C-alpha cells in the first residue's frame, strides 16, 4: 500500500502550546500537502511543500520535509482551541492529482 502513516494518532495539548505531527510515506513524491478536517466537515488545504523544498511557513504553520527519510512534520505554534481538528498529510507522487492520504492525527486543544 502506498498509504502514509501519521504519528501520533491523537494529540491533546493546552491552548498556547505547540503541536507537532509527523507523517511518513513510502514512494517518491512530487509534493506533500497537509489538510485539516473539522468534525463533520470536509478537508481544507493548509499548505503544500514541494519535493525540492525542506521547510515552509504559513502563519502559525511550519512544515518540514525530509525526502531521504520520506517524512514530513507539521508544527502548529501557539495553538488555539479552534485548531482542534484532524490533520492529514497527503502525497502527490506524479503531479496527476492523485493524493495518497495518511490516516490523520486527531488534535485536541484544550482552552
Amino acid at each position, binding site marked *: 500500500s502506498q*498509504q502514509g502513516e501519521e504519528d501520533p494518532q491523537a494529540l491533546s495539548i493546552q491552548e498556547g502550546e505547540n503541536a507537532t505531527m509527523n507523517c511518513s510515506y513510502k514512494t517518491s513524491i512530487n*509534493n506533500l*500537502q497537509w*489538510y485539516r*478536517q473539522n468534525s*463533520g*466537515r*470536509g*478537508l*481544507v*488545504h493548509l499548505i*503544500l511543500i514541494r519535493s525540492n523544498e525542506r521547510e515552509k511557513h504559513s502563519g502559525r504553520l511550519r512544515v518540514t520535509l525530509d525526502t531521504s527519510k520520506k517524512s514530513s512534520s507539521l508544527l502548529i505554534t501557539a495553538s488555539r482551541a479552534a485548531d482542534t481538528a*484532524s490533520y*492529514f498529510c497527503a502525497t*502527490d507522487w506524479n*503531479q*496527476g*492529482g*492523485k*493524493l*495518497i*492520504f495518511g*490516516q*490523520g492525527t*486527531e488534535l485536541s486543544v484544550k482552552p
Partner: protein
Amino acid sequence: DTAVSQTPKYLVTQMGNDKSIKCEQNLGHDTMYWYKQDSKKFLKIMFSYNNKELIINETVPNRFSPKSPDKAHLNLHINSLELGDSAVYFCASRIRNEQFFGPGTRLTVL
C-alpha cells in the same frame, strides 16, 4: 457562495437499494474527485474526472458509477448497496495542486 457542494448530506438506506450522490463546484475547476472516508477516517480516492473525462479509476466495485454531465458536476451512483458501503463520501475539485473538498455525504446502509 459554496465552492463545492454535495447533496444529500445524509443518506440512510436499505441493503440492495440504488442511490445517487450529487456534487457541484462553482470554482471553474476542470478536475473533480470522489473519495471515500471510512469509520477510521481513512480517506481513499475512488475516481477522478478531468473536463468530463474519467482519468482515475481506483479498484472500486463496478456497482459504483460516476457520471459527469459537465465539468461543474460529478455525480456518484451506487447500485445494490452493501453494508460495507457505509462511509462518508467526499467530492473535491482541483486547481493546480490544491484540492477543495465538499462537506461530505454520510451514507448509512442498514
